C-alpha cells in the first residue's frame, strides 16, 4: 500500500469510527465481530507506526478537515507528544481487546456489540485528540470521548451503574463546559488563535493575572486529569466492566486529560510564560495535595478496583506536576510517565479483572493466598506495582527520576518530599496485595495492630487449591503488558527520544 502520510493520519482517526459499522453489521456473530475489532486494531497500529516513522524522518504531517466557524478549524498535526499518546493508546487497544474477549465472554456480559462499538468510537476520539492541531479540535474530541464512554461506564445498567454514570458524566461535562470551554473562548478572544504552537500563543505583554486565571480554568476544566476536587468521576467509573476500567480509565480517558494539560502548558502557554504566572505555584501545591490525599485514600480502600482508581488519581497528579514545573525535565518526566503509568496500571487492572473472573473476588481482604491459584497473574501484579512505585526493574523508574530532577531543578523541595512520600505510600498500598497472595500467613498491618493472627486453616485451604488462571486471551494480555513494563525499563530509548522531542519540535 502506498498511502501518503496525510491520508494515513486521517485514516488513523476515521478507521476506528468506520469499524463501528462493521461491528454493528456483524453483531450477531461474536467471532466475526471480534475479528473485525482485532483487524481494526492491527490496521491502526500499522498506520500509527508508519506515522511514527514519518515523524522520525522529520516529515511534517498535517491535515485539514473543515472550518467550523471563521478561524476555527478542525485540523490535525502530528507532534511527538501526540505521537507518544497515539502509540500507547493504539497498542494497548489491541491488548485490551484481546483481554476483553476472554473477560466479557467468561463473565457473560450482555450487550457486547454496544460495548465494542463504544470502545471503537472512544479510540477514534483518542486518535483525534492526540493528533489535533488546535485546542478547538482537541475540545471536540474531548467531548466525544466523554459521551462515547458513558454507555461503557453504565454498561451493567444497574442502579449502581446509573449512579456512577451520573457522577461520571456530571463532573466531566460540567468541568469541560463551565471551565474548559470558557477558558478556550477566552484564549481565542485574547490570543486570536487556538493553534498549538511551541512556546505558546499568548503575546509577551499578556496580562499575567488574566493568564493565571486562565491556567486555573484550564487545569480545573480538564476534568479528565482528575485533579482534586474534580476527581470523583474516576472512582465512580469503576462500576464499568474491567476492560473499560483498564483501557479507558487507566489509559485512554485519564491520559487524554493529562495529555491535554501538557499540551496546554507547553503549546498554549509555553514554559516561559508558565513559570512566571502567579497561579502556577498554587496549582502545583494543589496537584501535590491531590497526589498525597489520593494515595492516602487508596490505602483505605478494600475494593481492589477502587484502590487502583485512587492510585490513578494520585499518579495523574505526578503528570500535572511535571507539566506545571515548566522545565524540560518536568515535561520529559510527564510525557514518559504517561507511557509508564499506562502500562503499569493497565496490567494492574487486567489482574483485578482476572481475579474477578476466575475467583469472583473483588475485595482485597479476600485475596490472601490466591497466589497459589493464579501465580502468573500475581507475579504480573507484583511487577506492575514496582513500575507504579518507580523502582527497577520496571519502567516507572525513569519517569519518576525525571520528575524528581524537575523538582530539584526548580527548587520545589516541598514537592520533592511529596513525591517521595507518595512513592512510599504506593509501596504500602500496592505491594501487600501480591505478598499476601503468595504468603497468606504474613500478617497485614491491620491484623498486627489488633493482634490477630491469620487462622492456620488458610494454608490448608489454599495448598489444595488448583491453578485457576484467567481465560487464555486475558492471560496473554496480562503477560504482554507486564513484559511491556519490563521492556520500558531496559529499553526506554525510543520513548525518551520522543519525550525530549516534545520540547524541540520535529526532529
Amino acid at each position, binding site marked *: 500500500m502506498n498511502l501518503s502520510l496525510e491520508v494515513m493520519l486521517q485514516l488513523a482517526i476515521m478507521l476506528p469510527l468506520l469499524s463501528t459499522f462493521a461491528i454493528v453489521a456483524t453483531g450477531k456473530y461474536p467471532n466475526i465481530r471480534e475479528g473485525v475489532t482485532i483487524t481494526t486494531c492491527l490496521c491502526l497500529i500499522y498506520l500509527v507506526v508508519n506515522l511514527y516513522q514519518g515523524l522520525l524522518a522529520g516529515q511534517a504531517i498535517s491535515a485539514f478537515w*473543515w472550518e*467550523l*466557524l*471563521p478561524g476555527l478549524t478542525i485540523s490535525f498535526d502530528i507532534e511527538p507528544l501526540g505521537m507518544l499518546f497515539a502509540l500507547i493508546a493504539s497498542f494497548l487497544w489491541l491488548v485490551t481487546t484481546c483481554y476483553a474477549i476472554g473477560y466479557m465472554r467468561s463473565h457473560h456480559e450482555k450487550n457486547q456489540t454496544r460495548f465494542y462499538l463504544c470502545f471503537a468510537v472512544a479510540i477514534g476520539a483518542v486518535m483525534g485528540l492526540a493528533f489535533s492541531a488546535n485546542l478547538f479540535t482537541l*475540545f*471536540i474530541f474531548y*467531548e*466525544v470521548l466523554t*459521551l462515547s464512554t458513558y454507555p461503557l461506564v*453504565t454498561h451493567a*445498567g444497574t442502579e449502581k*451503574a*446509573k449512579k456512577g454514570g*451520573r457522577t461520571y*458524566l*456530571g463532573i466531566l*461535562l*460540567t468541568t469541560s*463546559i*463551565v471551565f474548559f*470551554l*470558557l477558558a478556550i*473562548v*477566552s484564549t*481565542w*478572544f485574547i490570543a486570536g488563535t487556538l493553534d498549538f504552537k511551541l512556546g505558546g500563543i499568548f503575546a509577551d505583554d499578556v496580562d499575567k493575572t488574566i493568564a493565571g486565571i486562565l491556567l486555573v480554568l484550564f487545569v480545573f476544566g480538564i476534568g479528565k486529569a482528575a485533579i482534586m476536587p474534580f476527581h470523583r468521576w474516576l472512582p465512580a467509573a469503576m462500576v464499568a466492566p474491567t476492560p473499560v476500567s483498564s483501557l479507558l480509565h487507566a489509559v485512554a480517558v485519564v491520559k487524554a486529560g493529562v495529555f491535554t494539560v501538557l499540551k496546554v502548558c507547553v503549546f498554549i502557554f509555553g514554559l516561559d510564560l508558565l513559570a512566571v504566572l502567579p497561579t502556577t505555584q498554587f496549582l502545583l501545591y494543589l496537584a501535590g495535595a491531590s497526589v498525597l490525599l489520593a494515595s492516602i485514600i487508596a490505602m483505605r480502600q478494600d475494593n481492589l478496583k477502587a484502590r487502583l482508581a485512587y492510585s490513578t488519581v494520585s499518579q495523574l497528579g505526578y503528570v500535572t506536576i511535571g507539566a506545571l514545573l515548566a522545565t524540560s525535565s518536568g515535561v520529559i518526566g510527564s510525557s514518559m510517565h504517561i507511557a509508564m503509568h499506562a502500562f503499569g496500571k493497565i496490567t494492574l487492572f487486567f489482574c483485578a479483572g482476572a481475579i474477578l473472573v476466575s475467583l469472583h473476588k473483588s475485595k482485597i481482604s479476600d485475596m490472601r493466598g490466591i497466589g497459589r491459584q493464579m501465580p502468573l497473574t500475581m507475579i504480573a501484579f507484583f511487577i506492575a506495582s514496582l513500575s507504579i512505585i518507580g523502582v527497577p526493574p520496571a519502567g516507572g523508574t525513569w519517569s519518576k527520576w525525571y520528575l524528581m530532577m524537575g523538582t530539584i531543578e526548580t527548587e520545589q523541595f516541598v514537592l520533592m518530599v511529596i513525591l517521595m512520600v507518595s512513592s512510599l505510600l504506593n509501596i504500602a498500598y500496592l505491594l501487600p496485595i501480591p505478598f499476601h497472595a503468595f504468603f497468606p500467613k504474613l500478617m497485614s498491618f491491620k491484623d498486627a495492630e489488633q493482634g490477630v493472627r491469620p487462622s492456620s486453616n488458610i494454608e490448608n485451604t489454599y495448598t489444595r487449591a488448583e491453578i485457576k488462571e484467567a481465560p487464555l486471551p486475558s492471560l496473554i494480555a496480562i503477560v504482554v503488558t507486564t513484559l511491556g513494563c519490563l521492556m520500558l525499563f531496559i529499553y526506554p530509548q525510543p520513548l525518551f527520544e520522543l519525550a525530549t522531542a516534545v520540547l524541540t519540535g520535529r526532529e
Partner: protein
Amino acid sequence: MIAHLPILQVILPLMAAPLCLMLKRPQLVWVFALIASGLAFVVSVLLLQQVMTTGVISYELGGWQAPWGIEYRIDKLNAFLLLIISGISTIVLVAAQTSIEKEIPKDKHVYFYVLYLLSLTGMLGIVATGDAFNVFVFLEVSSLSAYALIAMGQKRQALWASYQYLIMGTIGATFILIGIGLMYQMTGTLNMYDLSQRLPEVAQTRTVFAAFAFVVVGVCLKLAMFPLHLWLPNAYTYAPSIVTAFFAATATKVAVYLLIRFTFSVFGVSFSFTTIPLETLFMALGLVGIFVASTSAIFQSNVKRLFAFSSIAQIGYMIVGFSLTTVTGLTATLLHLFNHALMKGAIFLALAAVIYRVGSVELTNLRGLGRQMPLTMAAIVIGGLSLIGVPLTVGFVSKWYLLIALIEEGLWPVAVLILLGSMLAVVYVWRIVEVAYFKEPLDKNVIVKEAPLSFLIPIWALVIANIYFGIDTRLSVQVAEAAAQSLFGGAL
C-alpha cells in the same frame, strides 16, 4: 413572478387555507397543505437568495406607493425568519397526518389543516410586512388560529390552556395595537420605515415613551419572556403534539423578530437602549429566566412540559444576546433563533411520535423506550445534546457566539452564568436519558414498536440538520451576521 415573491410568500398559504375546505378528504387536504407549505418554503429560499445578492426588496401592495399603501419589505433579517418558519412548517406537516389520526377526531381533520395554514400565513405575514398595522392584523390571524389549534388537544385541560393563552395573547396584541396607535398619533404614518424616519423628531415625548412601553411589553407577552411566560407551559403541554412542534419551533421566534424589529429598526438603537435602560433590564430578566425556567424544567414529570420550560430558558439566552446591543450579541441571538428552531422541532416531533405509539409522555411512560423506539429516542438525545451545547451540534455554535459576545463586553460573570445554565440542561436532559435507557418498561407485555416512517423521516431530517448546521455553519452564520450588521447600519 419573481417580482411578486414577497406577496406570494403570504398569499400562498392564505389562499390554500379556504381551498382546503373544498377538498374535504383529510388525506387530500394533507397533501394539499403540504404542497402549499412546501411552495412557501421554496419562495422563502428564493427570497433569501435575492436579498443576499441584491439587498432589500420593497414590494408595494396593489401598486400603492409606500408610505400610503402597504409595503412588504424583505431584508436579510426577515428573509432568514421566513426561511425558518416555512421550512419548519413543511417538515412538521410531513408527520401531521399520522399524528393527528390519534389525537384529533376525524371530522376535525380538515379544520386542523385550515387553521394550521392560517397560523402559518399569520406568522409569515408578521415577518414579511413593512407596515406596523399589518403586523397587528397578521398577529391576530396567527393567534386566533393558534388558540383554536391548541383547543383541539385531546385532554380537557387543552381548553383551559387555550383560554389562558387567549387572555394573555389578547392582552399582548392589544398592547401592541395601543402602541401602534400612539405612534400613528405622533407621526401620522404606519409604515415602519417611515416611522423610523419620523420618530426621532418626536422621540422625547411622553406619548412615544408610552408607545414604546406598550409595544415592548406586548411583544414580550407573545414572546413568553420571563416573567410573562405563564401561558406557555400549559399551551405547549396540552396542544396536539404536531401543533406543539410547530409552535415551539416558530411562534416565539416570530415574537423575537418583532422585538428586534421594533427596538432596532422602528424606534432605533439610540432611543431603545440609551434613553431607556432596556439593556440592564433585559439582561437581568434573561438570566433569571434561564435559571428559573431550567430549574422548573428539572422538576417536571411531563416531558412536553419539561421541554416547554426549556423553551422559556432558551428564550432567555436569546434575550441575553439581544440585551448586549452589539453586532456579535445580535448575531448570537439570531443564530440561536435558527438553531433553537431545529432543536425543538426535532425534540417535539419525536415526542409526537412517542405519543403516537405510547399515548402519553409522562416520564414513567418513557421507561424502556430506548430499546423499543431506538431511533426516536436517539433523536431526543441528540436534540438534548444540542440544547446542552455539545460541540458539532448547532447548540454549540450559538453558545460560542454568545460567549464571545459576552467576553467582548468584558461580562465574564455573565459568561459563567450562561455556562452554568447549560449545566441545568444536562440535568433535565439526562433525567430523560436515564428513564428511557435504564428503566425497564412498566408493562413488559406491551410491545411498543418504533415510530412509523412518516414520523422518522421529518424527525431525522431535523436531527441531521442539527448536526449539519453544527458543522457547516456558513449559511447560518453568514446570514445571521449580515442581518445583525444591517440592523446596526440602521437601514430598514
